[in-house]
């Protein structure tokens, strides 16, 4: 069964450094998402992306965050200057469309640890 893949599985970065999290969505999917889960908290929406532009973003997704689909297969999340509170699991998801019967499928996440 096709799946969303994320790399790396664990990223350790010094505070203030830039980090790029990578995702390869399911190949025929058109909608892409990033979520995060801080330890001990719920999964939270960050951003959705369709047709090479952001379609929706949460208040968490401030100017330090950006997303890009640099080629036909990768979808990346960049954090420009990381903060301690950015430490979390980051999940990428994709879906073939929106609306009912178009569930979002998730990768296994990247654990981001900011020191």
């Amino acid at each position: 069964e096709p799946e969303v893949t994320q790399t790396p599985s664990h990223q350790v970065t010094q505070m203030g450094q830039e980090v790029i999290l990578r995702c390869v969505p399911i190949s025929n999917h058109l909608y892409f998402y990033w979520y995060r889960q801080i330890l001990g908290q719920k999964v939270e929406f960050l951003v959705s992306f369709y047709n090479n532009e952001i379609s929706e973003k949460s208040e968490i997704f401030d100017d330090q965050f950006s997303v890009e689909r640099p080629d036909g297969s990768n979808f990346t999340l960049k954090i420009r200057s990381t903060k301690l509170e950015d430490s979390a699991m980051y999940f990428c998801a994709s879906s073939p469309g929106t609306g009912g019967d178009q569930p979002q499928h998730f990768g296994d996440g990247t654990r981001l640890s900011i020191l």
Partner: protein
Amino acid sequence: GENVGLHLPTLSVQEGDNSIINCAYSNSASDYFIWYKQESGKGPQFIIDIRSNMDKRQGQRVTVLLNKTVKHLSLQIAATQPGDSAVYFCAEIAYYNTDKLIFGTGTRLQVFP
């Protein structure tokens, strides 16, 4: 794992018994609901979904029930197996103006032999 420390309600069942996991949602405008299973070290895995124009949907060993009157969703797992042990999340979405999923807190299911 990422759910360590989260004060999750826990459901403990014997292998072979049926499990019922409950979820209350808040937005009466939500029109699509999904149940996800999350095993330790893994991402949320899609189990089953239901649209708001339905009140029941069945899959393989799983059934989702939706009660819009009281904004309640449940997941029933038949003949629970040790491999069903995980954290289960309900998620809601209101497609008329968004495609973001809003996740619930989750329930930890523990299956004993």
